[in-house]
């Protein structure tokens, strides 16, 4: 009788002590902690390993060069399950438990939208490194991925001019990104004389495209454009599309090179538009790819549109902290809009209402999974994404 009461008491006391300890621990820590929330499970889990590798390489390179303001950088990785509820848990942990100095994340729009209020409450600088549907604004966020204003035009223009496409069918995942992208695309198509004859959505975790494919079959569009979550939904759709025997020009607004490589010959012929491809022949890119191969060897995941901006973002943060002379959030936030970094993609500077002009490439996936660049557009403007944020 006595021992078990004591046990319960000890348990309660240690819980309280642990809670106290964790909340005061950060004051004494030396390294700069950068939180990375990414979809280790769920839709994004196919691309997450590449994102983690990019982050690790960036941190290694920064630490090898002496860190930021003489302090080492420490990575804190959390799984956001590619969704809103998971992101909430991940950000609560990163912002309040680990008390990171900044967050650099590649994640779905669902996760990002859930993260923003927490980041604002915790006052952490947040660099969002994924491409997305645009118009997401917060005083605490900067974006170095592309937005539809930069990415959609190459694909639609190419289909209309080189493939003579007049009718388009749009499919996507039913969430902020899918709807936002296809919304923009539909407007762009109509503005340029085309017609959208169908628009269908599946939830992020949906895997069965059969009824939608049947609808596409009966509608006979000239071209198909999709905007699903990056990762698993791309693969499922492509596989089922291929298996169904439908052949038509297919532009995927959300695919990345890594996923394309893993799909094998299912991805052949898909058109994509993006700011980063491994076949960009710049010296900076060659250096980056060499460093990746050296660091990860056989286990290297193909660097892609979703993982390379993550690499750059660490250097952007480093530059901002060095410019501000401190990790104080308010000063860093101001500095982030003033610094630039010359990376594998070219120069990146997040000074166009929190977004960055980018060089965009239109490509087509080849049988070996590599991407042949068809056209290049330099310095494409992201447009007025956040007119109310200074």
């Amino acid at each position, binding site marked *: *009788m006595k021992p*078990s*009461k004591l046990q*319960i008491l000890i348990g309660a006391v240690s*819980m*309280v002590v*642990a*809670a*106290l300890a*964790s*909340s*005061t621990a950060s004051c004494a820590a030396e390294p700069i902690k950068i939180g990375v929330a990414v979809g280790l499970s769920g839709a994004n889990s196919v691309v997450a390993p590449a994102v983690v590798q990019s982050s690790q390489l960036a941190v290694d390179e920064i630490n090898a060069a002496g860190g930021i303001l003489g302090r080492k950088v420490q990575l804190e990785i*959390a*799984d956001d399950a590619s*969704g*809103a*509820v998971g*992101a*909430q*848990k991940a950000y*609560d*942990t990163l912002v*309040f*438990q680990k008390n990171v100095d900044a967050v650099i994340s590649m994640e779905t*729009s*669902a996760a990002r*939208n*859930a993260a*923003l*209020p927490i980041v604002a409450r915790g006052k952490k600088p947040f660099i969002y490194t994924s491409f997305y549907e645009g118009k997401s604004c917060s005083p605490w966020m900067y974006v170095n991925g592309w937005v539809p204003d930069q990415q959609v035009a190459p694909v639609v223009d190419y289909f209309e001019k080189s493939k003579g496409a007049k009718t388009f069918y749009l499919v996507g*995942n*039913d*969430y*902020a990104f899918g*709807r936002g992208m296809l919304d923009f695309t539909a407007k762009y198509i109509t503005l340029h004389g085309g017609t959208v004859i169908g628009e269908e*959505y599946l*939830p*992020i*975790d949906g895997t069965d495209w059969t009824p939608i494919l049947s609808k596409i079959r009966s509608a006979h569009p000239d071209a198909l454009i999709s905007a699903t979550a990056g990762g698993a939904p791309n693969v499922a759709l492509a596989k089922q599309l291929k298996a169904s025997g439908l052949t038509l020009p297919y532009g995927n607004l959300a695919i990345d090179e890594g996923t394309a490589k893993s799909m094998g010959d299912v991805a052949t012929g898909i058109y994509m538009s993006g700011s980063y491809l491994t076949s960009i022949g710049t010296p900076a890119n060659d250096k980056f790819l060499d460093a990746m191969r050296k660091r990860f060897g056989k286990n290297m995941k193909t660097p892609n549109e979703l993982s390379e901006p993550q690499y750059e973002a660490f250097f952007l943060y480093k530059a901002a902290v060095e410019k501000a002379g401190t990790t104080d959030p308010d000063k860093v936030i101001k500095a982030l809009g003033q610094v630039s970094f010359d990376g594998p993609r070219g120069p990146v500077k997040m000074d166009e209402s929190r977004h960055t002009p980018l060089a965009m490439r239109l490509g087509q996936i080849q049988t070996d999974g590599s991407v042949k660049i068809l056209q290049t557009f330099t310095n494409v403007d992201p447009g007025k994404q956040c007119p109310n944020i200074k």
Partner: protein
Amino acid sequence: MAKVTASPGNVGIGQRAADNRMRHIRGLLLVGGPAIALLIAGPFLFGTYLLNVLIQAFFFSIVAVTVDVLWGYTGYLTFGQSAFFGIGAYAAGLVFTHGGFSPSYVLLGLGVAIAVAAAVAAVLGWLSFYRGASPFFATVMSLVLPIVLSQLLLSGGEWTGSSSGLTGYETFDLSLQAWYGIAGAGLLIIATLAWFFVRSDGGRTLVAIRDNESRCQYLGIDTSLVKIVLLIVAAIVAGVAGFGYGAFSGVVAPELTGFVLGTQLIIWVALGGRGTLWGPVVGALLINVVTSYLSGSLPFAWQLILGAAFVAVIVLLPQGLVPLLARPFRRLAGAGAQPILVERAVQARSAQGASEPALQMNDVAKHFGSLKVLQGIDLYADAGELVGLIGPNGAGKTTLMRCMSDGAERSAGRVVLCGNDIKQLPPDRGVRFGLGRKFQNANIFDSLTVAECLRIAGTLIEQPSLFRRSNSLALPPYALEIVRATGLDRKLGTVAKDLSHGEQQALELAMVLALEPRIVLLDEPTAGLTKTERTQIGSVLASLAHRYRLCCLLVEHDLDFVAEIATRIVVLHHGRIVMQGSFDEVVNSELVKTIYAGTPQSAAGHGSANHGEPS
């Protein structure tokens, strides 16, 4: 009105009440004290992260309480409480996103949460708890609800945010500490209210329904209605908790309404200890807090441990872990005192004269397809009669009893109880007309004490309180006689399943009589009883009929017993009444002998009074 007959060696009612109150207060302080202390000290002791986690855990625990009341106490395994939680959360999200944030919008959101949760619960209850529904079906329905709801939300496009959910809407600008206080106070209040409810006299009805639903129906309790109302209340509580959660967290997504959360609630309740109320609260809080700390460092191992613990608990330790750890505390709280037995004057209606027959059956028939079990039954019985129903096995005696009590049972004919046509009405209505039925095997509430069984039996006459535990238990004189004669009055605190077979039979009879019925149906009341017990029952039944003017019908095989007490015998054979008359007439008739023996018997030599001849 109530005559106070003190049992031997008893302390006065007043003193007992005072003792009870002291025990109550001690118990409350033991559990409530630390809880209140934690609530007040929390914001000063805990860091931001832990406060965050605890606030969410508090909201979840409120739902866990509702799950325990529904599953642990009432026996309704439900995966659907997450749906009501999600309804509340989305009410907050939708109203604040599409409307705005202001006091009137807050009230609107809260109103929507409550109204929609209640409406959905009403529909679900109506679908799940209809007459004759199996508990399995109810569970299946509770499974379908969260799935339907999360899919509906996913198809809501931009309006519900679909897979992204709704985020970033304006909400209460309160500090974490304030939210901690609100959520914690909410949990404390709900848990305390639930605690008082399940321990009250009325709350024991839930356990009665779980143990033996048909017995409850035969005591006049409309169990479907009770369950539906309970579900609606539980849904409203869960909905309000969801509203609070949605307002606090600023993020609502389909995961909050889904099947997975519903199963997690079950796991917390199972591990915490179903049917204890505080077990699930502690379990839910602990698991939520530990998960949030471990899911980063030990994501796989922790979930594995939880899953394995859950399986182990279900298979080996159904009462859960927390009660096991806290057994020493129970001894501190002490056992409750038993109520005092008190006689209650029989209600006026029962004393009504024989203006109409108590039981009237016209041309009643029952067939299963082409198999005719009963045909052309015409039977009358008056108050004060003791009718013995005999016949070989398979004659249809039990079916006849069922047709008398359950309106949906018969295929044709008319049954009138004390002047009321039972039509197609369920048994609980028949009971309200004055019927009481005692089953063949002791049909009582296994987990309740003798006193609790008797109290619930009197529900129709004296509604038990939904909040208090009464100090006295009133029974009509004939029920009281049985309780005293069989020694049950010294075993008021014994759990019913620990009684001997004879005692259980007596308890069931006392319960039936506590209803103050005008007709009592008894199915083989002497089965398994010793000679002494048989004599006791015999004199009880005789006095019921002759002294208290009840109408008793019994199905019996023991002809000795029937000979002693019956005023009339009815013989049933192949579903027809072949003979009615006094005992001697019947026993000496050729027809009856043939029926029992199977072949014609000669008139002489096989004498009168065939004692104890089995059929």
